[in-house]
């Protein structure tokens, strides 16, 4: 190529005084950025292929590496930013759809950061989680409208199947294929140890992981990959994936290169073929069709499993949720537009959907207005980044949160957003055996357990401060929230008052 339109995005900077030429960076970079030149006795870096995954920076034993933005820049233009221009160059060259991964990185408002929490002072004591019991257990599923008792005073009403969580956090759907076996094992083992759930995503469930079934949510997506009787029966719950926050309106896409033997067996598709899920479920073109699928799955599993319906947060999410709540589903999962993905068209990821905070607030209120909040539990996803995000989500009305990106971060992900290349240096979003082994599930699962334990502890401290000693007393407790820097409309949708009121 005579003209190179693509300047490196990053600059790999090596402190030569610190570098001992151990070549760990070279051995660890799947993008082949670093190499040792024996003639020069020097490490040389080629920034062009660097994706800023920070693997080399993290592994360098002498902290000799830094990765910064390439200072080279196009002429300033507030409208035509360098990113926008580069995308034009790329499409002019390839003629293709721009692809990307992970969540929407653009500067839209993060409502979590515009909501503040309450604490008790004087009139009501804060509760100290180190000294008093503090409960974070939640149940997900439909609640009966009334209750009848037997003669002896015991309960006669049966509850439909529920999920019991030790803390209101679950691991989001991430398929085997989009992420590695070791990542899956880490999630599964962590879920089992924590008493929560992880989610297979649409890639089926590897035989080796059936033993984690009691902590597994199995997904049925539009491609129906890996779906068969044993699969449905193994999971603790079944999730129908109608949409995904990162790419509302389109189906999943796993490139054939990632479909090696094990993935192919698990997905039940030939090796090397692209796994492209249709945008809709072709048996669901309307809400009444969804009801049929919900009950088909219930029939298939003898009404033993709660059914989750997952949707992307889109403009009329409240009405859709209301329809789902009446469809027989037990749980609604709503995925906001900042949710992650292993691969998505850039334009869709960056421009479609709405923030989860607003979607949650309007769904919860809508279900209450209709008196059907008890018919379903509400789980939210799409960039729940910390325990305070969890607390805010629950106070807005969620029963639990899915965490995906945060879980991947715990496993080492640095959000380089290059999952679609399959060359994940952290062993997460890859199927290359030499890369996959970099994620030791013995470490990975432990880090996930640590993360959720830490969040659980923080949740207890925050709700204790509010004088609450059980998470259910936080659910929908919007008085515990105040907005900061929000306009009247935003406050109205969120159903909260402004700080100071």
């Amino acid at each position, binding site marked *: 190529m005579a003209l190179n339109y693509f300047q490196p995005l990053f600059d790999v900077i090596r402190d030569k005084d610190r570098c001992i030429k151990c070549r760990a960076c070279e051995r660890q970079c799947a993008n082949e950025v670093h190499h040792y030149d024996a003639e020069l006795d020097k490490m040389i870096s080629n920034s062009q292929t660097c994706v800023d995954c920070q693997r080399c920076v993290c592994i360098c034993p002498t902290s000799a590496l830094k990765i910064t933005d390439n200072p080279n820049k196009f002429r300033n233009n507030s409208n035509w930013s360098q990113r926008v221009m580069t995308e034009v160059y790329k499409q002019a060259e390839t003629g293709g759809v721009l692809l990307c991964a992970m969540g929407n990185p653009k500067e839209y408002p993060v409502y979590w950061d515009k909501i503040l929490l309450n604490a008790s002072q004087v009139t009501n004591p804060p509760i100290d989680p180190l000294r008093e019991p503090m409960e974070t257990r939640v149940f997900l599923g439909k609640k009966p409208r009334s*209750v009848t008792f037997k003669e002896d*005073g015991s309960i006669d009403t049966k509850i439909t199947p529920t999920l019991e969580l030790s803390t209101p956090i679950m691991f989001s759907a991430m398929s085997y294929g989009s992420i590695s076996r070791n990542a899956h094992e880490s999630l599964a083992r962590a879920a089992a140890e924590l008493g929560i759930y992880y989610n297979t995503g649409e890639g089926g469930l590897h035989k080796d992981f059936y033993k984690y079934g009691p902590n597994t949510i199995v997904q049925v997506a539009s491609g129906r990959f890996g779906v068969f009787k044993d699969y449905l029966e193994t999971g603790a719950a079944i999730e129908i994936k109608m949409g995904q926050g990162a790419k509302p309106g389109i189906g999943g896409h796993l490139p054939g290169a990632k479909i090696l033997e094990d993935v192919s067996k698990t997905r039940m598709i030939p090796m090397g073929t692209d796994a492209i899920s249709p945008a809709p479920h072709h048996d669901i073109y309307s809400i009444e069709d969804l009801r049929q699928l919900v009950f088909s799955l219930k029939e298939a599993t003898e009404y033993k499993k709660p059914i989750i319906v997952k949707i992307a947060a889109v403009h009329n999410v409240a009405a859709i949720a209301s329809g789902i709540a009446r469809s027989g589903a037990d749980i609604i999962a709503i995925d906001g537009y900042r949710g992650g993905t292993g691969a998505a068209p850039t334009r869709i990821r960056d421009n479609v959907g709405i923030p989860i905070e607003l979607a949650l607030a309007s769904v919860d209120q809508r279900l*209450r207005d209709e008196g059907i909040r008890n018919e379903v539990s509400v789980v939210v996803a799409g960039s729940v980044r910390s325990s305070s995000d969890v607390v805010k989500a629950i106070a807005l009305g969620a029963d639990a949160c899915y965490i995906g990106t945060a879980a991947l971060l715990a496993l080492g992900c640095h959000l380089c957003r290059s999952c679609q290349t399959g060359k994940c240096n952290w062993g997460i979003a890859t199927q290359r055996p030499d890369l996959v082994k970099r994620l030791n599930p013995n470490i990975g699962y432990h880090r996930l357990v640590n993360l959720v334990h830490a969040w659980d502890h923080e949740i207890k401290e925050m709700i204790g401060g509010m004088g609450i000693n059980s998470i259910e007393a936080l659910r929908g*407790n*919007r008085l515990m929230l105040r907005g900061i820097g929000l306009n009247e409309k935003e406050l109205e949708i969120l159903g909260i008052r402004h700080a100071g009121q």
Partner: protein
Amino acid sequence: MLEKEGQVRIPAGCAISGFISRDGNRICGDKIVKSISYMHDRSNGLGGGFAGYGIYPEYKEQYAFHIFYDSNESRVETERFLDRHFDVVNLSRIPTRKHPNITHEPLIWRYFVTPLPTKLAESQLDEREFAAQCVININDRIKGSYVFSSGKNMGVFKAVGYPEDVGEFYRLEEYAGYAWTAHGRYPTNTPGWWGGAHPFALLDYTIVHNGEISSYDANRRYIEMFGYKCNLLTDTEVITYIIDYLNRKLNIGLEDIAKIIAAPFWSEIESGRYSNEEREKLKYFRNVFSSLLITGPFSIILGFEGGLMALNDRLKLRSMVAAEKDDMVYLASEECAIRAICPELDRIWSPRGGEPVIVKLNEKK
């Protein structure tokens, strides 16, 4: 301008007291006034009130509505509503006496009513639900009217002021009932609205409450799904509605209600001290009624037809003592309020957090 009750949530500290004669002996109202006066320092003159049970034996088949009116227009509109729905057997101003510490009184009226059979049939509701709906309607829709008591053979008397002054104002010494409860309020600002005083009542349920529950909005937003409107934004209001919902609408007994609103901790449920059935029941309650768990400090005395129930939050973050003497059972924030009216007691104890004290009239021999 200061916001009043219903526009803003006002935290308050309080004193509560109550007693019941299990044999159904009717006790003069001055006794409850004396009891609550001993806890003067737990109030600040911004609210006091009483509930008496068995005080209207002559009208025991009628609902006794006690209503505050801001103006005669409100009264006229309300009475028109009442006439449309009820047969008004008796109406009158509630007798009061002038008291230097009680000012700005609204119009205070009392009606003994029975639902019109045609209206009742048309509504397809049971009688109690019909009455409750009408009360909620008046309070929600008619500006300047507030029904603050609506049970049968019982009545609530409340005002802005110290409770002992409120008792004198309402001439409680002229009433006699088998059970009484009282409330002295210490709100943290000056709402100055009589409706905001306690007890809070719906039908024959009355609640006096000391505490500030942290689960308020979770409970409120849940209970409002079932037709209730929490206009006052007070704990007492939402707790009353919760109990009304569970007891009257879902037929759950008071013992079980305590297991829902002051549920035992999971660690206790799973400690092995319960039978399998009991454990399953507790687990069921915590799952199905999780949004009715009340957290944060509270001590309440619930009055209902034929009995009283006292309950503390599960951590017992507010004081509450109970005592017995012969057929009498006493409940109060402080022991002094009991000793003041019954110095010699058979037994006095401090109920544990979440452990209800339920007292009912003895079966008539």
